[in-house]
């Protein structure tokens, strides 16, 4: 594909209707006439009227779009990508992360690192896990690629802190064990689709 084709973003059939606009004034006299007509037509005062009306409405009628942010928060979309959280298994309380390293691999900012080891139960243990939030671009790939729905984006959008490090360790991201019953299932990228069952074939089982 050539650059020109690439740049042409007019996809599909083009059904543009041209507005029947008068020509721009060319001569000084025409321009003057335009100024006079626009000045005297009162359009400017319509604008003034609108702003005045709005002011009166918001002062007297209390119509306002503002939220008093720290005291009043708008709900966040489930697909919003805020600071990460690590979820636990609801049954056992064990962290869901299996240390497969897919998030580490897919991360375009290369900000996820993990150390794993063979533990005494013959399982893969995640000994350490960090996200460098100085580099994270919150693209959500990690949550999308995670096969266990372990790493997800939470709803902590207020991330002012003296140190980024206070978000980035495994324990900081992990659901506190006493809040396990409050753990929310993530609805965003990588979550199971509502019709997932219809899209897979069942594996035969012998027992």
């Amino acid at each position, binding site marked *: 594909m050539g650059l020109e084709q690439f740049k042409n973003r007019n996809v599909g059939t083009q059904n543009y209707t041209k507005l029947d606009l008068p020509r721009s004034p060319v001569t*000084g006299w025409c321009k003057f006439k335009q*100024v006079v007509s626009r000045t005297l037509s009162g359009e400017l005062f319509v604008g003034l009227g609108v702003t005045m009306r709005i002011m009166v409405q918001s002062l007297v009628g209390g119509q306002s779009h503002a939220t008093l942010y720290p005291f009043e928060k708008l709900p966040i979309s489930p697909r919003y990508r805020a600071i990460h959280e690590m979820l636990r298994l609801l049954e056992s309380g064990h962290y869901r992360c299996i240390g497969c390293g897919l998030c580490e691999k897919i991360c375009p900012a290369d900000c996820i690192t993990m150390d794993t080891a063979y533990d005494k139960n013959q399982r893969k243990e995640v000994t350490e896990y960090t996200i460098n939030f100085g580099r994270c671009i919150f693209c959500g790939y990690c949550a999308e690629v995670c096969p266990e729905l372990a790493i997800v984006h939470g709803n902590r959008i207020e991330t002012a802190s003296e140190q980024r490090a206070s978000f980035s360790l495994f324990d900081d991201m992990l659901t506190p064990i006493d809040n396990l019953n409050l753990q929310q299932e993530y609805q965003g990228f990588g979550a199971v689709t509502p019709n997932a069952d219809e899209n897979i074939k069942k594996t035969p089982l012998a027992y």
Partner: protein
Amino acid sequence: MEATMLPEVTAAGIIIKAIIVLAVIAGLAAFGTYVERKILAYMQRRLGPMHVGPHGLLQLAADGIKLFTKEDIIPQHANKVIFSIAPVIMAATAFIALGAVPVFPDFTIPFIDVYVPSIASDINVGILFVLGMMAAGLYAPLLAGMSQANKWGIIGAARTAVQFLSYEVVTGLSLLAPIMLVGSLSLVDFNNYHADQGVWMVVYQPVAFILFLIAGYAETNRTPFDLLEHEAEIVSGYVTEYSGLRWGLFFIGEYANMITIGILASVVFLGGYNDLWIFPGWFMIIVKIAFMFFLMLWVRASWPHIRPDQLMWLCWKVLMPLAMVNILITGFVMMII
């Protein structure tokens, strides 16, 4: 009112007046920022500052503290002397202009018996002085823009020179007609003219009033003519490199100029500080100035900017000829009557 009835104007009285003007106008300028933010907010269905103090009233104190305690930064390649002087010129010219403007009614301080006049210095060319002082204010943005070794500053300075010089002409010409009617350059005479006539100047000179307003907005660098520091094009124009206290001086200067224009418009066209019906003169002048100030904010909330070329076109091809025509007509009418 007869001059002989007034007590003697002493130096102490004038100094007190100057201090009052300085303090009150500076305070008002700061308060003006709060008012502007609030009004713009309401006009856009927002709330504006709400957190510091009740309804954000103490926001200006917070801003003041911030401005005064900010680090004073002078860019490496700037001309340091001029860079430092420029904001002072801005504030100084704005306040000196107020020296020849009647601001509050006169009064006598009890016990020490010091008479404080309504005008610090009732010079007989008051209006000329005010216009001259405001014109001198041009140097502030010009020097500021040129001294800071920043391309946005340079562009801002260039626009300053063009815009202020051009609209100076319109201001002068638009005021010429009222001056012809009054026959004096003293603002006190203007005020008295209203009282004598019983009708506001705006009735005789509507065109001059409108021209004066437009030119005044251009001279105070207000929307729709705020091209000197137009963020979308030239970052902050001549104040790009300024911060902290120096930037604050520009800010106060701008708001002081807005008040000056408000006072001028009130005194020259809108009846000055004369009593109206049951309202006393001091109240009326405050109402008028407040309205003029509010009008600036209202316009800012409603109308878009214009382009620099449109600005020049408007000045030289529309406003200036209109002002000339207005003067001619006024002159003819005066000859006939």
